[in-house]
């Protein structure tokens, strides 16, 4: 990944996908809840509408039954029959008023046996003549039985029953009507919940809506185009397929359904049942808010936890990276103090071990230079060897190339360096083979130390053996040297044994394992005597005294050397005695 936010920080890489996942789950949850609740609300509203429709139908049926029952009782009243037989309009008017009160209806009319209006109470509006345009009356005349229908009377919606008055054959009819008006609609709403309006395509008859809402929905009592389209559609749809639709009311969405009402009108009558969709969805909004709040809290919590986890991984890694950077600049003192049992802990421990290893190597390199044998290094690192300074008996070996100055002047520098390097390789190998260390390289030779820092009791013999080894390596070396068109090298070796002071010396960053003592000077002087005596290996008498029968010794000489008051006794080493068993 190379996008900007994920480029550098491990923390971001862990943290962002984690957050994105939680956010995605949160959004998905919200969506699922929204969809489910929407659907549930629609279903439950539709169920409520069905209930309203059923309640309305039951209400109408119950009212019809009650109207028929009560009007039939009135019609059976003999006094009424006798009153009808008088055909006296004034008497009958008063009877109509009286009987209307008895059963508590909006209108009660009386007709003769042919359906001609005789008298009435309520809504008659100056009617005269036959009322046979009223369907229930028509039916009652045709069947001699009570009939009921919803019809329009004087502009209002009325559930009208017609009941014959028998004397014993029909001598007249009673028409009783109960209005389907705003009160009915409001009652229906109070009983079932949704708002109810009764309407046909041209006009509104009654509604439970308050005046202001009603004016919005049905301006001037008219049914407007969108609703009329639904009315036209609902008219031709069988009941189970009838579906809900949305109407606007002041920005509020009304879920609406049209329930057909059987009526004797020129246009089909419907009950428009409506409920505010947005109000019904109110709980969803609350639910959404809660899910949102809980989700946001969960997100925050998850981010915190995620952050902590990311931190738990990234912070130690950051520490590791910081420490690593400092190690890269050469600071090997860096250590991590992460005490953990996990992979990070393993990394930290490995880092510590690795840097400790690097530090030790650096330490050895600084102390002894590059040329320290593995044994010596191991001894130094294992702490067997004190480097702090001590007095001890050691043997020191000096090696030198004869006439090196002349050689250096006559030879190509690059060839010279190659030759010298080859020489040193052999010399170092000879020293290390005997457990000594190279103390210092002179221009054409080495100074080697035996018996320190690793203590070897036979350090004089080891030094002598190394010197002999150097000579032994010379012919093979010279074979190569001569290929470079350089004259064969000759070397001289001087060895001295004595008590010296050894230890790390020098300023902090440049301290070295050094040796201070007379033996060092003596070895150097003795080496110088080789030229004078024509020997290759000269050793001090003190060294010779420590050797066993291993070596074949040659001439003895007592000579004055520079810087020494007393003469020094030196012994030539010729070689190894044939019977001697080599050790080391």
């Amino acid at each position, binding site marked *: 990944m190379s996008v900007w936010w994920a480029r550098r920080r491990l923390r971001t890489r862990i943290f962002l996908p984690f957050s994105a996942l939680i956010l995605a789950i949160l959004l998905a949850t919200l969506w699922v809840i929204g969809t489910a609740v929407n659907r549930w609300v629609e279903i439950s509203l539709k169920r409520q509408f069905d209930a309203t429709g059923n309640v309305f139908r039951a209400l109408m049926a119950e009212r019809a039954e009650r109207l028929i029952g009560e009007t039939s009782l009135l019609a*059976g009243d*003999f006094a009424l*029959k*006798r009153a*009808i*037989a008088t055909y006296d309009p004034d008497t009958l008017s008063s009877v109509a008023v009286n009987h209307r009160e008895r059963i508590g209806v909006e209108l009660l009319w009386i007709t003769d*046996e*042919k359906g001609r209006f005789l008298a009435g109470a309520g809504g008659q509006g100056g009617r005269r003549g036959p009322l046979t345009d009223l369907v229930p009356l028509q039916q009652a*005349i*045709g069947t*001699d039985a009570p009939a009921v229908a919803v019809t329009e009377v004087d502009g209002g919606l009325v559930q009208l029953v017609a009941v014959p008055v*028998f*004397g*014993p*054959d*029909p*001598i007249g009819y009673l028409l009783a009507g109960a209005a389907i008006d705003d009160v009915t609609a409001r009652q229906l709403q109070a009983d079932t919940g949704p708002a109810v309006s009764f309407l046909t395509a041209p006009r509104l008859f009654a509604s439970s809506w308050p005046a202001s809402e009603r004016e919005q929905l049905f301006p001037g009592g008219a049914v407007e185009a969108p609703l009329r389209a639904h009315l036209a559609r609902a008219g031709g749809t069988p009941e189970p397929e009838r579906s809900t639709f949305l109407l606007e009311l002041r920005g509020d969405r009304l879920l609406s359904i049209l329930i057909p009402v059987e009526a004797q009108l020129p246009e089909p009558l419907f009950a428009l049942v409506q409920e505010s969709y947005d109000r019904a969805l109110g709980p969803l909004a609350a639910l959404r808010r809660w899910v949102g709040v809980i989700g946001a809290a969960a997100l925050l919590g998850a981010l915190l936890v995620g952050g902590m986890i990311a931190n738990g991984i990234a912070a130690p890694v950051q520490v590791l990276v910081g420490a690593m950077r400092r190690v890269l600049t050469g600071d090997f003192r860096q250590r991590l103090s992460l005490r953990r049992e996990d992979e990070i802990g393993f990394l930290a421990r490995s880092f510590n071990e690795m840097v400790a290893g690097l530090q030790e190597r650096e330490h050895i390199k600084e102390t002894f230079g590059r040329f320290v044998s593995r044994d010596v290094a191991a001894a130094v690192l294992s702490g067997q060897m004190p480097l702090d300074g001590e007095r001890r008996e050691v043997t020191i070996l000096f090696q030198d190339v004869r006439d090196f100055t002349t050689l250096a002047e006559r030879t190509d520098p690059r060839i010279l360096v190659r030759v010298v390097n080859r020489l040193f390789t052999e010399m170092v190998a000879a020293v290390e083979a005997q457990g000594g260390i190279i103390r210092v390289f002179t221009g054409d030779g080495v100074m080697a130390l035996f018996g320190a820092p690793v203590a070897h009791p036979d350090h004089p013999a080891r030094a002598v053996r190394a010197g002999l080894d150097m000579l032994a390596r010379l012919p093979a070396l010279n074979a190569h040297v001569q290929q470079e068109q350089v004259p064969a090298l000759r070397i001289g070796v001087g060895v001295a044994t004595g008590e010296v002071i050894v230890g790390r010396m020098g300023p902090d960053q440049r301290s070295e394992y050094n040796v201070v003592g007379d033996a060092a000077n003596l070895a150097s002087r003795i080496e110088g005597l080789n030229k004078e005596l024509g020997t290759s290996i000269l050793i001090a008498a003190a060294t010779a005294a420590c050797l066993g029968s291993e070596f074949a010794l040659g001439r003895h000489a007592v000579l004055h050397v520079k810087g020494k008051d007393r003469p020094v006794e030196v012994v030539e080493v010729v070689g190894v005695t044939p019977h001697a068993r080599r050790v080391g």
Partner: protein
Amino acid sequence: MNSASAGCGRSSPIGRWSLVAGGWLLVVLAARSSGAAELAGRVVDPKGAPVSEAVVFVDQLPAGAVAAAGGRTAVMDQVNKEFVPHVLPVAVGTEVSFPNHDQIHHHVYSLSRTKTFEIPLYKGEAAAPVRFERVGAVKVGCNIHDWMAGVILVVPTPYFAATDADGAFTLRDVPPGTYGIVAWHEGAKTPVDGTRQTVTVGDAAAPPLTFTLDVAERKARQPARRSYE
């Protein structure tokens, strides 16, 4: 009773009959009429089936003839909570008594425009007879038994007869002359005037008369049986 049959009971077709209403009906027959005749016949429906409980009567007398008084009393009985006979034809001016042969009370009434009367709750034969002085159908009911219904058909002449189960009738003692004769039925869809046949009664025996009436079935008015009975 439907609207089609209502026509013969209480409104316009009857109007003409009322010309002869009022007072005792006296039928003065021409002295020269030596022998009265019988007019027989049947009333059938359009399919030829007999129509019972129809009434055939003379509604137009020969010119100059006057209906004579008939002083007798007719009876409409009440048996087993029914009027017997269901249809009772009477000549105008006849008194009808309503003896109650049930062991319960009845409350006989009519609210017909032809004759409105009421005999409040009574038992036995004590009730006073009711005189019918206008021509027309009078629907009779019982106020406490809604299903009880009878018809008293008040006709303008003493020449009338009800059909039997075979639809047959016989008009007796009809003096010679030319008559308008009509048939009536409670459920007839045909107006009474539409059934008129003119018949001349002479020395020779008159051929049998046939009236065709389209008749609606009479509705049972007995109370329905319900639970707990």
